[in-house]
Each structure stands twice: as structure tokens, then as C-alpha cells.
């Protein structure tokens, strides 16, 4: 009997995390719409994710996928330090996309490093759509 209590508790925690992710993504995307963004598209997000751009200091082309992998369910690896990076997919990593401040912090850092500029509200919304909902499931 006790075992079922544990199973139910774990399912509730998983559901709770999934709800937290959806809430945060919705809130972020609402703020991007207020900044002028339109519909968000996971396919656009995916294509930007693997778009290569030359990085002068690294002396090679880089993209989001370079460190985070093109497959969001796998572990990534930092191109310079070799440090392993937990999967981006919320289905593999319940912590992903549950903290708005953390999302914005890494957008600032990584867009600037990878593309040499901040990402636009449209781009951020498309990225979140890709990460949260890669099959564009409604």
C-alpha cells in the first residue's frame, strides 16, 4: 500500500514541475508578445538553434547546438571547458524553464556570445517554443 503512496507522490511532483514549466513559458512568451513578437514557432526555433556563425575568438563556427547538442534530450558539453551540460528538454530535466530570471540571464549571455548581440523578443519566444514544445504540440 505504501508503495502506491510513493508512486502517487512522485507523479504529483512530476505534474507540478510540468505545470511550473508551462506557467513560466507562457508568462515569458506573453511578455515577448507585449514587446512586439508574433506567433511562436518551434521549427523556427530549431533552425536558429543549429545556425552556425563564425566566432572570432574561438576561431570556429558556433551555434546553440555546439554546446547544448542538436538533440535536446541529450547531455551537452561546453566547447571550451568540456563541462557537461544537463539536457535542455524539460521532459529530461525538470528544472528547465521553471525560472524566468534564469531564462533571461542565459539568453543575455549566450545570445551575445554566440551571435554577438541580444536575441529579439521574437527569437526568444521561438527558442522557448522549440525547447518546451519541440513537436509544436498544442
Amino acid at each position: 500500500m505504501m508503495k502506491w503512496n510513493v508512486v502517487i507522490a512522485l507523479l504529483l511532483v512530476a505534474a507540478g514541475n510540468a505545470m511550473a514549466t508551462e506557467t513560466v513559458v507562457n508568462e515569458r512568451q506573453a511578455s515577448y508578445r507585449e514587446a512586439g513578437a508574433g506567433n511562436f514557432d518551434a521549427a523556427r526555433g530549431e533552425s536558429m538553434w543549429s545556425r552556425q556563425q563564425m566566432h572570432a575568438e574561438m576561431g570556429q563556427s558556433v551555434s546553440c547546438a555546439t554546446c547544448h547538442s542538436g538533440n535536446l534530450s541529450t547531455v551537452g558539453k561546453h566547447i571550451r571547458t568540456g563541462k557537461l551540460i544537463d539536457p535542455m528538454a524539460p521532459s529530461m530535466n525538470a528544472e528547465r524553464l521553471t525560472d524566468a530570471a534564469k531564462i533571461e540571464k542565459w539568453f543575455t549571455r549566450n545570445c551575445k556570445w554566440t551571435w554577438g548581440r541580444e536575441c529579439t523578443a521574437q527569437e526568444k519566444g521561438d527558442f522557448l517554443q522549440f525547447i518546451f514544445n519541440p513537436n509544436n504540440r498544442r
Partner: protein
Amino acid sequence: MKKTTFWGTILLAGCLTLSISSLAWGDSRSDDGGSYGLWSQKETALPVMNKAYQTECSACHFAYPASFLPARSWVKIMGTLENHFGENAELDAAGRQEIEQYLTAQAGDQAPSRFSRSFMRAIDSADTPLRISETAYFQREHRKVPAGLVTGNAKVRSFSNCASCHTGADKGSFNEHGIVIPGHGRWED
């Protein structure tokens, strides 16, 4: 004198002797060069830890003890986060300030701790080192470590990757007996 009074006095005298001599023997140097305080409790390199520093600055690498660099080095590092050794480590203004205040307050030339004297003594006052691994004390301590075990070791890669070999690093311990080099084993000097 009653028996209990006599033995009580002996006990009191013994306690007083022990306490006072512990104070006298406090801070003595031991074989491993450690600084021992009262009751042989070793000072660690991490007497105080700031949560924001721990969270923000161990996302990519080990959260280096503030005492390993002088305050001026931390100021320089925290003032150039958009180009942090080739990476962008930008923070919001409040977070940046909190961490800078912590690091400068606990810096090697500001707050004494286990290794602060050793590190600071070997840094010229005209220098502002940014890499702990390039300071003279660090290089002396690691002079016997073959490059093949660190930079040539895929599991370690760099001397800035302290925690991969120093198994007690997150608790501020860099004791020689706690060194296990990945793919190689314990380091016995």
C-alpha cells in the same frame, strides 16, 4: 581537606591547565604545513560561503575560494564579466554587486584563512593576477604534477579544474591525502 574537595581541586586544576595550554599551543604548524587552531581543528579555505557566489559561479567551474586572490583581482574579474576568460558571464547589477562585495570582503588580503598568507605572500603588490593557477604559490604546490595527468588528461583538462582531483575542495580542503586523479588514482607524494 575532604576527599571530594581534594579531587575536585585536582580536576579543576587539570581543566584549567588543559584550556590554557590549548590556547598557548593554538595555531602551531604541523607536518603537512597546516595551521591548527584550538582542539586541532584545521582552518579551511572556506570559512564563509555566499549562496549567490556558490550558485552563480559554479555553474561552469568550481567556486574558487575568495582567499586565493587579492581583492583587486576579484574587482577586475567582476568588472569584466561580459568577457570572462573568453565567455560571457554577465549578471544583473544587484547580483554582480553582492558577489563582488562577498569576494572582496573574503579576499586573501582582507580576511585571514587557511591559505591566504601563502597565496598573498607570493603575489607582487604591483600585480593583479586573474588566474589562481598562474600564481607563484599555486605553481610551486603543483610543480611535481606531470602535465599529462592534468592538461593531457581528458577527465581533468586544466589546472583550473580543482574539484576533479581535490576531492574535498567543495569543503575547502586541499589536503594532499584527499587527492584522487581521475584515471590515475591517489596522489601519494
